[in-house]
């Protein structure tokens, strides 16, 4: 099975600040992957590295088993939708499609024209006059008509209103169903991802916190409510992600290969949102500890 994206110790530094560090990932092809994390977590950096708009500072990265932007063929196999869906405001929709045809090896002109037609857009209209949702759809059309094996979408719905958002996500699902295409989709909203994704990567504080198929993740994470005493006796095979203690009650989010059968705990159902938030707050906690440790050293 090919990898959609494989990173080994990938890092990117701007000046003295690391936007992404020690990123090791192997995302198999054939998934709709949600890349989730707070703003500034490194999502855009990772995607830009994946399309070759940035060069890594450390580590290596392959996309569809090839170096990003290494050849026209490789570029042609990846459909990329950048954040805020940039298009040329002075050029018409038609010219954008001509551009796609002129610059891409496997351009599907029929598909592109049909999509523009189905969207009810006038091909002679300048892209500068489109609404946010229409512009996103045009940019998506350009990405899809390349007939890519992998679609990379950077916050595609962040700037869309709820209706446009739903339509956009529906389009993605159609594309996945029609053409065998892998998708990596970044967002800071879990709700968007929950609807379309079957694989999750949580990126926070410039690092990958967790990744895997969503079903597996949900099956191996538990939210436990019990006592402080029970917490102190958790077996080593249980890994604690987040803990909170109030008087006489302890709530923990843990991951464990084996089911939790200890009657001292009551096991609660875990949603994807809970899981993501647990990892994000863990990252935030670690970041604060780090800052405090540095402060103490001074």
């Amino acid at each position, binding site marked *: 099975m090919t990898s959609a994206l494989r990173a080994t110790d990938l890092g990117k530094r701007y000046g003295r600040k690391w936007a992404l560090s020690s990123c090791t990932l192997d995302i198999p092809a054939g998934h709709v992957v949600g890349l989730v994390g707070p703003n500034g977590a490194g999502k855009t950096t990772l995607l830009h590295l994946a399309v070759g708009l940035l060069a890594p500072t450390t580590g290596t990265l392959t996309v569809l088993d090839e170096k990003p*932007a290494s050849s026209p063929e490789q570029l042609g196999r990846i459909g*990329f939708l950048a954040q805020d869906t940039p298009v040329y405001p002075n050029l018409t929709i038609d010219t954008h499609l001509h551009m796609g045809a002129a610059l891409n090896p496997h351009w599907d002109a029929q598909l592109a024209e049909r999509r523009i037609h189905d969207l009810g857009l006038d091909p002679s209209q300048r892209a500068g006059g489109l609404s946010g949702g229409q512009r996103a759809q045009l940019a998506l059309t350009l990405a899809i008509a390349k007939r890519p094996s992998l679609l990379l979408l950077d916050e595609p719905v962040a700037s869309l209103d709820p209706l446009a958002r739903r339509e956009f996500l529906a389009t993605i699902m159609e594309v996945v169903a029609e053409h065998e295409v892998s998708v990596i989709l970044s967002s800071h909203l879990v709700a968007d991802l929950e609807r379309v994704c079957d694989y999750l990567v949580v990126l926070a504080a410039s690092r990958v916190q967790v990744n895997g198929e969503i079903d597996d993740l949900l099956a191996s994470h538990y939210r436990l409510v019990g006592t402080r005493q029970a917490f102190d006796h958790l077996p080593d095979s249980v890994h604690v992600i987040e803990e909170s203690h109030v008087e006489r009650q302890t709530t923990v989010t843990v991951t464990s290969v084996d089911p939790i059968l200890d009657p001292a705990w009551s096991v609660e159902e875990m949603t994807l949102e809970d899981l993501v938030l647990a990892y994000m707050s863990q990252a935030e906690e670690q970041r604060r500890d780090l800052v405090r440790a540095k402060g103490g050293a001074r």
Partner: protein
Amino acid sequence: MIWFAWRQFRFQALVVFGLLVAVALFFIVTGPHLADLYGELKVCKAHGDCDSLTSSLLNTYNKELPFVQALDVIFPALLGMFWGAPLIARELESGTYRLAWTQGVTRSRWVLTKLAVVGGASMLATGLLSWMFTWWADPINTLNASRFGSAVFDTSYIAPIGYAAFAFALGVAAGVLWRRTVPAMATTIAAYVAVRVPFDHFVRPHLLSPVTLAASLKSVGNIGFERTPNGVSFIAGDVKRPNSLVASTSVVGKHGGEVTQQWLRDNCRSLLQLNSPNPGKGGHVTTGIRPKAFTECIDKISASFHEVLLYQPAYRFWTFQWIEMTIYLVIAVLLGALSYWWVRRRFA
């Protein structure tokens, strides 16, 4: 990719080539008239005095000429600003580079095609303007006999093609480094002037080792004396050399030395005595000097000194055009390589 590079450039190209068409119309309408006047002048020259015809030729378009010259001078810089600077900067600024560079065309090919298409157009447009101007102004340039002067050398023949390539590459490089169009445009014009002006004045006269000419001071026009705070000093104008470029002139003793204050005191006492009671004001003091004292002193100076002229003779004109064009083309290629390297390194 060539198609798309042209498609993005089409509007800017139309504006500039439209301007060229307007200039061409002016040349086409007025050029034959100038040529006719020059034809008459040649016929007249066979008989003798043609002063009125000469001045009529030089004066007919003396209002338009400075405009056309100015356009020729700034044209490469304008292309650098309006074609070069936005070429990559606008993509970076508006974020469309993320669309452009993720199509199925490698970054290298994208940059090189853009440089070739728009850079080539810059050289073509400037070459056309220069060629038209060279043709139109030929009678004027022939009469003025100063082809090596900036007004002709910088605006005609092939040197402007080099300037165009340079200005364009400068604009692109500024755009890539700034990542914003407007500061890149300002940088382009500033850097263009900062390179061209010193080059014209200090480098061009020495591109080849100049020819030396020792001329009798009697052959030099415009000689006389100038009052200075400590007395009177000798001044001499340049020897006239048609269509050539003077690197330096100096009045040198036939056995070394200069016309110093001391020398004048020793040899032209009468001249100094007459003029001493009127200190303070500068300027020529030939008036008020007894013609005899003046002539005597000039004769004495001429006997011991001559003017040494270092210059680039007229026959080197084309060599200099080629050298200058080549130098600027080389700088343009280096700047282009810098932009190419920077885009590849900085953005992947």
